[in-house]
């Protein structure tokens, strides 16, 4: 088996919707090397996709001159993923999506990305930069833990 501990992989994507799929492909390959089971790789792919979509859309505001950085760091028992953009980040978490309010038109049908990220990985943390030029979300997914 490939020794992945201590290894770090970095990807840079253009700020164009659709390219989150490239980050999904890269993250899935790293997780596969580390020996993650298929269902956890699916969780990771969706979380990475949503983090990249937010970086492209909200962080870099679809400005194609800016790129999104994805840094994957493997340790013995977990994979850490940082998705970095050039925006100001977020200072507070949005409310948990409420399907009833959505269905009754009282809440935007969108606004589920951060909730999905948090639900699918073992740790999720949004770090914003006071200068507003380098914010990231940091995800951790653990090898020994099944997602419940």
């Amino acid at each position: 088996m490939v020794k992945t501990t201590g290894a770090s992989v970095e990807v840079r994507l253009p700020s164009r919707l659709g390219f989150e799929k490239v980050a999904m492909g890269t993250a899935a390959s790293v997780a596969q090397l580390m020996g993650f089971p298929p269902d956890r790789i699916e969780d990771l792919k969706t979380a990475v996709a949503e983090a990249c979509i937010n970086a492209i859309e909200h962080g870099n505001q679809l400005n194609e001159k800016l790129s999104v950085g994805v840094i994957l760091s493997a340790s013995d028992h977990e994979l850490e993923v940082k998705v970095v953009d050039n925006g100001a980040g977020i200072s507070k978490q949005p409310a948990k999506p409420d399907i009833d309010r959505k269905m009754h038109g009282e809440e935007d049908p969108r606004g589920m990305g951060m909730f999905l990220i948090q639900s699918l990985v073992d740790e999720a943390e949004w770090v914003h930069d006071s200068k507003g030029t380098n914010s990231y979300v940091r995800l951790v997914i653990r090898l020994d833990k099944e997602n419940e």
Partner: protein
Amino acid sequence: MQAETRTTIDRISGTNGAAISVLRFSGDISSTSKDSVLGAWQTVTGDGPVLLDFSKVDYINSSGIALVIQLLMEADKTGRKIAAFGLTPHFQKVFTMVGIGKYAGLHKDEATAAASL
């Protein structure tokens, strides 16, 4: 392979003989799928029940899920029954997480979904 969403509409007969419309999606369901998802809904005639077939869908993101919710809102407004099938276990879990299961049954295959209506 490509990121386009394609939607075809079929009419099948339910267990009681009543017509069911089936919206079959393929490709990706994302922010660019509005026309394929909500547009297809506009062309469904009558007021019978509707099935959503996700078995050929490779990728759904949160913007795509928002379109599915808008489609459920349309169904709700017109009092149509709706059920989905063919989601992978992962997307079945994701749909359940965001609460969609409360407004549409999520079934393994077409027969089970049709029988549920």
